[in-house]
């Protein structure tokens, strides 16, 4: 057994030593850390490994057209619609709450939007504003109930899941006189000036140019396979950038993390948890409203099943992207990547020879493998345990 004599003031050798260390420029209590492992520590970048794996899988098994420009746009479009929702869900989850009603809210917002346009013949801008206003109010109500009663948001928003879905049905029947499908939106809005914001494709000029110069693949009869980038992809990318910026670079972001990490501690430190959470509920609702507007304009119709189970898929995408269900941890980029993984797996099967009966088995296995893979890689790289 090691037993040193008690050190005395005139034996300061190791004390000196310690102090020298303490004042040295690099901390001796850190091993070297590569920028790579530093990066992999970020919640969002865990999902990168999963995305790579899924991409490689489809590269090997799917029709190569999947990764042509047209194929990319094809699977990125649903991924973007899901992704916009997932962003709202992810921010809310980071803030420590759930919103299960966003799926039904798509149907409800779709109802409001289409009736505004088709039945009340409002101009597009007014219809959009009205829709967003309505969903924002619903978001506020959700938030208010959750915050003022202290009930789990799971159960409160679940009630709204049912109620909004039911109201969409009732409303649709009322608006159409008995059907559950309302059509005719496309015709009603076709010459609105702001339509390009929510419908169609962006950068069409550019794509036309590329098409002319043979940079875009064509169908056998010569028609170019894509004519532009669907506007939802632009929204998706823009909102991801915005959410990332807010989370990482603004005080509000700090408050969101704090509210989700420990609401009591955050409140005791002076964070206005109520306002933050209300804002997040409204943001999630607005995302749902935006998706509703985009899909209604895209399909020209709405029905009572729109957005069915989308809340679930949005949460899945956020979790794949590294958000914790318990709150306080996650990222917008993670939700972005998670949505792409999910969208790719969902549409990718079409490009393979796998039988549709195996779709769900395949979806589940892909999810599991992707998540396990990114988890393993991250641990390997960061040395975490």
């Amino acid at each position, binding site marked *: 057994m090691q037993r040193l004599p008690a050190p005395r003031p005139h034996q300061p050798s190791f004390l000196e030593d310690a102090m020298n260390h*303490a004042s040295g420029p690099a*901390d001796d*209590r*850190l091993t070297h850390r590569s920028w790579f492992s530093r990066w992999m520590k970020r919640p969002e970048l865990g999902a990168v490994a999963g995305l790579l794996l899924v991409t490689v899988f489809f590269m090997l098994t799917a029709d190569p057209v999947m990764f042509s420009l047209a194929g990319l746009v094809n699977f990125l479009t649903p991924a973007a619609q899901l992704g916009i929702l997932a962003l709202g869900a992810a921010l809310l989850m980071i803030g420590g709450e759930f919103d299960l009603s966003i799926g039904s809210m798509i149907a409800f917002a779709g109802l409001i939007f289409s009736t505004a346009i088709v039945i009340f013949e409002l101009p597009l801008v007014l219809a959009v504003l009205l829709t967003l206003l309505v969903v924002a109010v619903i978001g506020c109500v959700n938030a208010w109930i959750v915050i003022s009663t202290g009930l789990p948001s799971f159960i409160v928003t679940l009630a709204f899941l049912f109620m909004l879905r039911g109201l969409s049905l009732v409303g649709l029947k009322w608006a159409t006189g008995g059907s559950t499908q309302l059509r005719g939106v496309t015709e009603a809005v076709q010459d609105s000036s702001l339509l390009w914001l929510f419908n169609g494709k962006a950068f069409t000029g550019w794509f036309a140019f590329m098409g002319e110069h043979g940079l875009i693949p064509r169908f056998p009869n010569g028609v170019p396979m894509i004519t532009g980038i669907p506007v939802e992809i632009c929204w998706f990318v823009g909102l991801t950038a915005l959410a990332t*910026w807010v989370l990482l*670079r*603004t*005080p509000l*972001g*700090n*408050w969101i*993390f*704090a509210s989700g*990490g*420990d609401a*009591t*501690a*955050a*409140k*005791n*430190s*002076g*964070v*206005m948890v109520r306002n933050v959470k209300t804002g997040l509920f409204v943001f999630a609702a607005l995302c749902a409203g935006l998706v509703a507007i985009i899909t209604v304009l895209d399909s020209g119709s709405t029905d009572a099943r729109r957005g069915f189970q989308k809340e679930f898929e949005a949460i899945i995408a956020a979790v794949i992207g590294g958000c914790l269900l318990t709150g*306080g*941890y996650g990222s917008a980029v993670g939700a972005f990547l998670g949505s792409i993984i999910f969208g790719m797996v969902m549409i990718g099967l079409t490009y393979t020879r796998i039988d549709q009966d195996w779709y769900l088995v395949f979806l589940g296995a892909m999810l599991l493998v992707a998540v396990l893979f990114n988890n393993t890689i991250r641990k390997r790289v960061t040395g975490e345990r």
Partner: protein
Amino acid sequence: MTAAAQPQPQPLVEMRAIEKRFGNIIALSGVSFSIHAGECHCLLGDNGAGKSTFIKTMSGVHKPSGGTMLVNGAEVVLESPRQAMNAGIATVFQDLAMIPLMSVTRNFFMGREPTKGWGPFKRFDIRQANQVTMAEMQRMGIRLREPEQAVGTLSGGERQCVAIARAVYFGAKVLILDEPTSALGVRQTANVLATIDRVRKLDVGVIFITHNVRHAMAVGNRFTVLDRGRTLGTATRSEITAEQLQNLMASGQELATLDGSLGGTV
């Protein structure tokens, strides 16, 4: 001990006959207390006496079930800790109020982030925040490895230092410290006591909760002892000795037999 500030007529904060019940549990049954500018008022008492509950009513965490609170002589009802902060009351809670998953810097500035830029481009100035955090922690005697380390991975004492440094850094008229030195090392404790002394000289009122009589005697101007939700009384430094204080803190019950070897004060 320098400058045992003479209490001025108008206390910064005064609490009158505060009561607090949790369901059927009575935590406080009528506690009165005041704090003046430039003094360090020690709040002492046995475990479970109600000290933390009391300062939590003062910092807006709990709403008292009875009693009134006066800030600068005006009656106020605090709705949230943020209101208390705006009224100039900064608190280091016993449970520290930190988010384990967040980095040291983000915890340090939680709720009061420094920004740069303007309008919609106003953003959290992380670089400056990191610098301040490292510097303030160094002042407390803690050398952080990196300001991005998650608070959850800090040692108990390191974490406590973050909480104290945070409260002190932002300045306040009343600084409440709930057992700030409990997990601290020798050096850090000395730093905290020195800090209390320093801010007191800047006319801040400090409320200092501790179980260590020696710490209390080192910096306290007045001493209030709580017992089972009631005050046993308030005394100034000149009126009381360490032994008397110790006896009061133990509610007068018999101490275990090791007493002698501890030299009277624990």
